[in-house]
């Protein structure tokens, strides 16, 4: 606020809210219900990113988790680059409408050179943050109708090798851990034996810790879920098995994978951690995942982006910079930039015009030269022709003279001789001439 504003009111503010006891039922205990009702009417958004090699079971796990069959494409192993495919579905359960977006990586881990594999994933996540940031910065905005496409959780699928993490896994998770909540899962866990699995999990977790990868921790600050969350934290990464096929066990049909040597039941906690994953991801912490995405990851992105663009909260003397000042500074800079560009353009234009002028002048000169040259040639030709004409005329004159001289002689000879002679002479003359 500018200091020049003078207040029309005298503010007496009680900074410390005193606790007060009520003497009866007021009724604001219905507030949480009012809030929940409003959210129910609006609907919820949840976006899951699945990162993992081709064929590791990402789509199957999604189908199993949400108990439905999403449209799935089996990708080939020959993708030249990693791509991301996003699909949005609307799920309904009881009175809850959930807009679920599942983003899958295509071609992850297939290339021979995997150095740039993580980049498309990072770019996608950043693009969603950017989109939200743009909406938030708009002057006329509608955040409440905005379809939130930011990734709330990233399920990272680890290959069940039984040994340790691949370097691709470490590099990718390290790049993603400050941008998204990562929950690592061991895929196709039915290919590992129980003892191997135990060692595998320990190895994975220690590798993550020693490389400083921060995966999502289920929150333990809320007493009602602290206990279950802390227990589950100890079971990470979850060893999952996905299946949409059903097998009859006893008298029930259960989701399972039938092998010649036995049946792996998806929802049997002794067989795999699927139920734990579903519990944690959907039933207990979905809202927390959304909140963390918004308050931690998005804020971090926003802070970095704004600082990159040159905004500051405090100026060099550490005084808080007011909104107005920041915008004015930015505006000045922008105007200066515009001015500079304008000058540049003007200069370029002038330069171009000069060049063109020079070109044209050059062409003109050339034309002029040509013209002169032609004119000269023409004149020379003309002179030659005139000379020839003169010569010809001289010749004609000479001939005419001879002719008249000869006629004169003839006339004299004719007048002194007979007509016969004249005829003979005439013939002779004529034949002489012919």
């Amino acid at each position, binding site marked *: *606020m500018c200091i020049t*504003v003078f*207040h*029309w*009111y*005298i*503010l*007496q503010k*009680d900074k*410390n*809210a005193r*606790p*007060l006891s*009520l*003497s*009866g039922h*007021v*009724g*604001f205990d*219905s507030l*949480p219900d*009012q809030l929940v*009702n*409003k*959210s129910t*009417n609006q609907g919820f958004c949840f976006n899951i990113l699945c990162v993992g090699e081709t064929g590791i079971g990402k789509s199957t796990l999604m189908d199993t988790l949400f*108990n439905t069959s*999403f*449209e799935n494409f089996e990708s080939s192993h020959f993708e030249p680059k990693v*791509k*991301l*495919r996003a*699909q949005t*579905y*609307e799920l309904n*359960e009881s*009175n*809850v409408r*959930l*807009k679920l977006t599942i983003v899958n990586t295509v071609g992850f881990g297939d290339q021979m050179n995997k150095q740039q594999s993580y980049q*498309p994933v990072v*770019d*996608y996540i950043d693009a969603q943050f950017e989109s939200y940031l743009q909406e938030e910065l708009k*002057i006329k905005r509608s955040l409440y109708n905005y379809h939130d496409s930011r990734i709330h959780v990233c399920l990272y699928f680890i290959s069940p090798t039984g040994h340790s993490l691949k370097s691709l896994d470490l590099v990718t998770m390290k790049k993603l851990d400050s941008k998204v909540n990562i929950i690592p899962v061991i895929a196709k866990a039915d290919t590992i034996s129980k003892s191997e699995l135990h060692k595998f999990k320990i190895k994975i977790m220690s590798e993550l810790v020693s490389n400083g990868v921060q995966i999502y921790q289920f929150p333990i600050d*809320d007493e*009602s879920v602290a206990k279950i969350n802390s227990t589950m934290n100890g079971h990470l990464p979850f060893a999952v098995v996905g299946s949409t096929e059903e097998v009859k066990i006893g008298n029930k049909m259960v989701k399972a994978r039938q092998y010649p040597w036995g049946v792996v039941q998806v*929802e049997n906690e002794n067989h795999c951690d699927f139920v734990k994953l579903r*519990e944690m991801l*959907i039933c207990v*912490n979905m*809202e*927390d995942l959304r909140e963390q995405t918004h*308050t931690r990851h998005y*804020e971090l992105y926003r*802070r970095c982006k704004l600082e990159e663009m040159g*905004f*500051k*909260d405090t100026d060099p003397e550490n005084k808080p910079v007011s*909104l*107005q000042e920041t915008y004015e500074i930015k505006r000045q800079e922008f105007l200066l930039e515009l001015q500079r560009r304008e000058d540049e353009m003007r200069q370029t234009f002038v330069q171009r015009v000069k060049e063109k002028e020079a070109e044209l002048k050059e062409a003109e000169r050339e034309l002029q030269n040509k013209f002169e040259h032609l004119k000269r040639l023409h004149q020379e030709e003309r002179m030659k022709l005139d000379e020839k004409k003169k010569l010809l005329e001289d010749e004609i004159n000479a001939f005419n003279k001879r002719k008249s001289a000869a006629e004169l002689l003839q006339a004299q000879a004719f007048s002194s001789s007979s007509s016969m002679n004249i005829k003979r002479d005439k013939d002779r003359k004529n034949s002489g001439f012919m």
Partner: protein
Amino acid sequence: MAELSRELPSRQVPATDFSYVGIDSILEQMRRKAMKQGFEFNIMVVGQSGLGKSTLMNTLFKSKVSRRSATSTIEERIPKTVEIKSISHDIEEKGVRMKLTVIDTPGFGDHINNENCWQPVMEFINDQYAQYLQEEININRKKRIPDTRVHCCVYFIPPTGHSLRPLDVEFMRRLSKVVNIVPVIAKADTLTLEERDDFKKKIREELSENDIDVYPQKEFDEDAEDHLINEKIREMIPFAVVGSDQEYQVNGRRLLGRKTKWGIIEGIITSLFLPFTVENVAHCEFAYLRDLLIRTHMQNIKDITSTIHYEAYRMTRLNDIKTYTNGMNGHESTACEM
């Protein structure tokens, strides 16, 4: 490069029953988080002194949230300019914690010359928006921005029985654009039932003549159901209230009321054995006001403040900065409001 394949128009995929997925547990998760965080509510009371503002607040929230000015001396009673007094309380009910702030405006309408007495109020409301905006555009933001924006302004109309006064019209016309206004007829026990109904009708007419949109505003009705409920409310405003924090015994029931020579005006019933619907709304419409403000529409009031009023303020403010003007505008810019 990352590539977004075309987003399919959302298909309706019903989750089948044989295995429960658990999506609807998000409601419970949300409730849990909300209860942990607590709620905030800021309510402003505006009206001349002596109209029963503090008493009404105390009755609404069943505790001494507002200090009655009737006890102060004559010198203290009418301040020279309009003051804004803000008192906060932490109250809790059935595990739901709320920080309630009651903002009082002593001095409003009490002077001989009341021109522009709406200005301090307007400026206070805009200041709260400005504070919130400043926090919101910070680079390092707080996890939860403290919400001091005025959610609801209860305007007290003196029970003249005739019509709105110029001061009332002026105030409500200007402020209904920046805050949710809930007009009430104060000290309604001075009007008979017919007088009350006539007065209400006249007020509603005058409000619509002057294009004053009080809460619940027609344009923000979300769907048909909402519209129905809100229409019923709109037919009743302004509520005629009688505030009271004294209990009396009437017909074997204990209730809050006012004792006069000609009978006890029943405010609300405090007995636990009778359902709250047995309130004597023929006497006073306090119950409707309470339900509107607290039990059913509190969240909606907060939502309208943040999505409509605050956004409008933000838009104006950011546009002003864009066109390089100084000063702060609500929805009107006056030369002296700098």
